[in-house]
């Protein structure tokens, strides 16, 4: 079956590029421009995986991650955090909050696709 | 505290030196004649004396001065 992926980022150009990439790779995608929209989309779209930007308006990626992981009633999606901040503490924080992987911007499209496949294969 | 005391003692000493001057020659020789029916000498000697006592009280015994006019700044110890 096709895996569903939700792309969350406040930079329209980034969202556009990832969406184009993943569609070409055969995934079903949805997008969200901020943290709150992301939460709504997770509940309606029920993605298998969320690509989650950290620095966003309204709710940061960390907050979204935390809320999702605290909600035990729903099917837990895989989460890959995307961030432009390279600090180790940020990576550790994301993983601690329940993210499955961490990608540093700017990333190679090949690496991103490989990471997505690796994670989806694990479940 | 010790410094404040030294200062008080110094001020008193200065008052003492002033007293030595106003109660002796040559100023003493100026208090002649009468002032309001009383001898100038009598008025001056007792008047200066009283002034000196008031000054000494002000300098040395603030507790008394304060007890007469307890104002808002009691807490300044």
């Amino acid at each position: 079956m096709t895996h569903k992926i939700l792309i969350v980022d406040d930079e329209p150009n980034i969202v556009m590029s990832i969406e184009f990439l993943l569609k070409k790779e055969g995934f079903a995608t949805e997008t969200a421009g901020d943290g709150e929209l992301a939460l709504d989309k997770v509940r309606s779209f029920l993605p298998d995986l969320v690509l989650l930007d950290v620095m966003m308006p309204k709710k940061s990626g960390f907050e979204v991650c935390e809320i999702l992981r605290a909600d035990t009633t729903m099917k837990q999606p895989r989460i890959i955090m995307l961030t432009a901040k390279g600090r180790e503490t940020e990576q550790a924080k994301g993983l601690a909050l329940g993210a499955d992987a961490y990608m540093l911007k700017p990333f190679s499209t090949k690496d991103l696709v490989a990471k997505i496949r690796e994670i989806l294969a694990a479940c | 505290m010790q410094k404040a005391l030294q200062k008080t003692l110094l001020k008193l000493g200065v008052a003492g030196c002033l007293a030595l001057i106003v109660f002796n020659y040559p100023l003493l020789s100026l208090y002649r004649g009468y002032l309001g029916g009383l001898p100038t000498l009598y008025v001056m000697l007792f008047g200066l004396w009283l002034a000196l006592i008031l000054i000494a009280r002000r300098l040395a015994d603030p507790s008394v001065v304060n007890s007469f006019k307890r104002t808002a700044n009691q807490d300044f110890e």
Partner: protein
Amino acid sequence: MIATWFVGLVTFVYLGSLFAVARFGDRRADAGRSVMTATVYALGIAVYCTSWTFYGSVGRATTGGFSFLTIYLGPTIMFLFAAVILKMIRVSKTLRLTSIADFIAARYGKSQLLAGFVTVIAVIGIIPYIALQLKAIAYSLKIIFPDDPEALIPDALEALAFMPDSTAIIAIILAVFTILFGTRHLDVTERHEGMVLAVAFESVFKLVAFMAIGAYVVWGLNDGFIDLFQRAEAIPNIAKLLQPESINFGNWFALTLLSGIAILMLPRQFQITVVENVDETHLRRAVWLFPLYLLLINIFVLPIALAGLIQFNGGAFEADTLVLTMPLSEGNALMTLLAFLGGLSAATGMVIVETIALATMVSNDLVMPILLRGRFDFANRKDLSGLIMLIRRSTIVVLLFLGYLYYRSAGEAYALVSIGLISFLAVAQFAPAMLGGLYWKEGNRLGAFAGLGFGFAIWLYTALLPSFAKSGWIDSGFIMDGPWGISLLAAHKLMGLDSLDPIAHTLFWSLLFNLGAYIVVSILTRQEASEAAIASQFVNIQKAGDSVPRIWRGTASAEALIELLKRFLGPRQAQLRLQRYASNRGISKITNLQPDADFVLFAETQLAGTIGSASAHVMVSSVVQEEELGLDEVLNILDEASQVRAHSKELERKSNELEAATRDLRQANEKLMEVDRLKDDFMSTVTHELRTPLTSIRAFSEMLHDDPEMGAEDRTKFLGIIVGEAERLTRLINQILDFAKLESGRVDWEVERLDLSPLLRATAESVGQLFRDKGTVFVLELPEDQQPVWVDVDRDRLKQVVINLLSNAVKFVPPVAGLIRMSLSFADGYARVSVNDNGPGIPEAYQSIIFERFRQGGNTMTDKPQGTGLGLPISREIVEHFGGRLWVESLPVEASNQDGQEVASGSTFVFTLPLAGDDVLAV
């Protein structure tokens, strides 16, 4: 006119009340509720006013005019030099000194001989003074009962051979009182609170009595002050007393000086002021209350004297008893009785305190040394406390008996009348040794002996002997003509000095030789080691405080010292004090005390309170083996001590400085860390901002690269995005560099004077394409009549600011009916440029955030504006560099006009710039 029995009754009721007051005071003290307040202390000092004041002042005023006042002005002035008194109190408390003899002896190496000498001078000088008080009592009785002065004595007692007169009865009562309340404790430095309270009571009584009589004379017998003085003015002989011309200024000064010295040196004054002082802050009250007392008791002296002079004009009268005779001659029984009791209170107060003071000196400094070294089996007795007490009590009796004897034998003689000032002169001889000892370390024992010796000899020759001669006891030729006709040695005109009255004459010569000998001998002779140590302690008492260097070396046995204390203090007292001493040092059992220098000193100080410092030193020395310290050694220790003190002060100062430096360092460090953190934040943010466009660029580039089949439409779109993001990246890098340059101050400003109007117009035109692209209306409002607005700025930088504001505004205006208004005005020396848009506005909370680096107010906006987040911070830096300000005013869209001035809705960014030179703009 007054019933004898009634006078007797009142007298004994008065004396009885004295006992009651004293007993009350002692009881309160024993119960731990001391009556010794500052006021009681100050009133106690008023024991200075004796019957010689009460009766004698008026007498002096009748002949000397104002000169009696010197006796009270001197003490008033001396009390202003409270520093001296305070130092005396501190020294005495520290060393447990008991009397003025003890004080002088202690200062000069605890010399028993010196203590004895001072005591002898005091006794010779003061006994006649006590006699004078007894005489005053006897004399006042004689005036009230001229026919039968002994009427007070019940007939039954009169039959007894040993009951000579009523004065003797009063003397006996005083002896009983003094013994009861003056020798309660063995330790003299323990306070006699009851006695002091009684004396304070007497002070109040005599003041009230005297003022009552004064008021009675002034307003009862005359028509007030002015009436009295006017009547006096009419009589030339009296009138001239009231003018300064009657004053001999030399004598005036001499008497002021003499009484000023006496207030410190009289044994009774030392007793009350120093020994009985329980709290040195009480001095603060005494400094003014005692002088006030003196003033009050003197206000009526001259009026009473004048009233007497006028009443008995020309006739003979007893000037010294006017206070008593005026009410008596008017037949006013109440006033007469009051005068009698006032005089009695003045006399008894003086006798009580003076006797205690003298008794302490005589027993400690005359009797004790003789007993201690005598053949009596004294030193071996187990408990000497009872014996010491007995000695002191007997001394009181003997002293009062001597006073009485002197009064009986001198009778009406001149010697008694003039004795007040002669006593003053005697005690004035203590001044150089005493004050010198307090302030001059080099003053030594030989100097003190020499000074006292000379002074005392001159006093004997020029003051005491002449008073004997005038009493007719010895030939009086030497007074005016000199012995064997040698006129230079005439007792009242030494060296031919005849312009001073006898008192001033004696004061001058005795103090001159006393002081001279003290100084010269002190300089010429060496101080002993033990003396140097204590001299330093005296002089430095204020500075040293408790850190007095212990200068003692030797071997001692604690047991022997404890034994010694028990013998002299009594076993219980000794036990008590040793226990206190031990527990202060954390030692539980007194048998564990170490016989070190501290303990030896403690023992000696305790003994000093009981038997005087000189005797105490002798006794302690007898049980310890003290090693003789050389003078050099002592001086070294003292020097070391003072160096240690100086050193520790220096250390304290240094440590304070260090602390301050540490504090500064810590603050600087915190600041640095804060700067560091900010820089870190900055770097992190910059990285983020750079990576974001890079992410898009890389992703699209890779996709274009990997997929050659991509449709032309997508390809064009993606390439467009890549170009746009690359431009954004470039802009960002430029601005970061720009901002970094601005912040570090490494910008080359090209400042020129230019008119803002054309600049704004040109800048607006350069961004005109932006407005047209979005369909926004732009309005530029410049001052009317093309008036130039000159400012000193960097043209390009200012353009940067304006472009930044305009492009910001374009971002926020609504896509339809967007309006941007830029206006220029000037006021108060500033040009003002505002850029207003009709966008959504900026909430108050974000109005300051937007000026921070990389902070865009975009969080609330639906579509994120394009920008670097550095435009506004850079603009603000630029504007502030030219002395202006940049801020934002933002109102809800609906905001209406205010005060007729148009305040637009949306956001208004405003900046000001100072106008260039006032010559350019004349409004």
